[in-house]
């Protein structure tokens, strides 16, 4: 009889992570693990370092001058900040979707095709565009107008186009920074449903201000808050299964936040 390996696989791990903007320590003491093919949400009040932490996972922080880290972030066990690691390569494998949908000023087709091309794709482009749009639950809505501008789509459709673009280069992880906060409620729910389908093939980490979204859509939740060490650094104060965070959190600060008693 074949034994199935049921050991949990963690795609991303942080080890005593600190993130600095210049000399300002924005994030401190984060030790968390992101499980493969699960959705991990990062929630917390404004200014506690959620987006900073998210951007560290694919070295997007480095686009801001003066950022640095201490500690480690590993991706499949490899230190992504090691000297010989190319940050561009990291961003192929750990993709990102932003709060404001940002399709290129190109056709729907070219948004995906151009992205794939510059990442070295040489296969059947029509098939890749179709499969990416299908995976992003957008194909049926745009299949008859692939040569129209990506900017002609609604906000929700534009965001799904950005997701299609991100997954066309086959990353392992998709980071989402408040992907639905600029969208109407129906478009928001469509993105959340899409996330449930995407997690079969990808690992997702999402930052959200919307607690109900985190509760509905994620498997695990990291609660971030200022650490209270007088330095205004954010840290993860609790990390657990989403069900637990929203029904029986262990930390009183988490309880206060999710019940709206915080502040």
């Amino acid at each position: 009889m074949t034994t199935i390996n049921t050991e949990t696989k963690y795609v991303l791990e942080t080890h005593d992570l600190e993130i600095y903007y210049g000399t300002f320590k924005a994030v401190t003491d984060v030790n968390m693990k992101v499980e493969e093919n699960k959705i991990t949400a990062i929630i917390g009040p404004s200014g506690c370092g959620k987006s900073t932490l998210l951007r560290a996972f694919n070295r997007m922080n480095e686009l801001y001058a003066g950022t640095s880290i201490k500690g480690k972030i590993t991706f499949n066990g490899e230190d992504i900040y090691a000297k010989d690691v190319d940050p561009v390569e990291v961003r192929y494998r750990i993709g990102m979707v932003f709060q404001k949908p940002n399709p290129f000023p190109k056709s729907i087709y070219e948004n995906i095709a151009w992205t794939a091309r510059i990442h070295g794709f040489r296969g059947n482009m029509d098939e890749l565009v179709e499969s990416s749009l299908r995976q992003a639950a957008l194909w049926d809505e745009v299949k008859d107008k692939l040569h129209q501008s990506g900017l002609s789509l609604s906000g929700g459709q534009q965001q799904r186009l950005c997701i299609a673009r991100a997954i066309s280069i086959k990353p392992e992880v998709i980071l989402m920074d408040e992907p639905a906060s600029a969208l109407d409620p129906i478009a928001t729910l469509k993105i959340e449903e899409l996330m449930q389908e995407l997690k079969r093939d990808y690992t997702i980490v999402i930052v959200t201000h919307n607690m109900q979204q985190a509760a509905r859509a994620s498997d695990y939740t990291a609660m971030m808050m200022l650490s209270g060490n007088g330095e205004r650094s954010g840290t993860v104060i609790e990390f657990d299964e989403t069900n637990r965070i929203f029904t029986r959190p262990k930390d009183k600060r988490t309880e206060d936040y999710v019940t709206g008693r915080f502040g």
Partner: protein
Amino acid sequence: MVRKTFESEIQQVKDDVLVLGSMVEKALLDSVEALKKRDIKAAERLFQEDKEINKKRFEIENHLMVLIATQQPMAHDLRLLASTMEIISELERMGDYAKGISNINIRMGDTTLLKPLIDVPRMAQKGADMLHRSLTAFVNEDVETAKKLPIEDDEVDALYNQIYRELMTFIIADPKTIERANWLLWVAHNLERFADRVTNICERTVFIATGELSEIKSSDDEFWKQQNQEK
């Protein structure tokens, strides 16, 4: 204060649960008193008044549904609202037990009581008192009281067993008393079940405060454990 509106709604719900609880307590004590005095008119009135208990239960349930839909309760708030849903359901059933006693009083018609009621009112007093204290514990989230209260159900069970034995003695001595004995056994059964439901309310109070949902063990459990061991 953050969530001032929600807090005051929660307080309103708790107050309403206490009102419902006191309606049920009164219904129980009044129904037993009416039985003791063979006051059929009072029994008929109490039978109809059960509708008020049901109405109050549905009012609270509706309020809870609205709060769940509009306030997105999480963690403690969620446990509180979900548990209150269960508790009012228990209270409604307890009200039905009181109604059942009134029903028996009415159906007995002209027949006299088989014996003066002594243990039956004791059971009712104990049950009503336990209910009162369990609801105070619920409102105050008093886990200690909630965990200790269920054991007092043993007293109610002991009274039931006493009544049972006594009624069996009557039946054996004179089989013609069987109908009248049966009426009283049903009354005692309702009172025994009334007290049992207090345990359920206590379990919910513990859950609200701690997040742990489990049965609070009673002597019944120990009795059956022993029975199974002896086999």
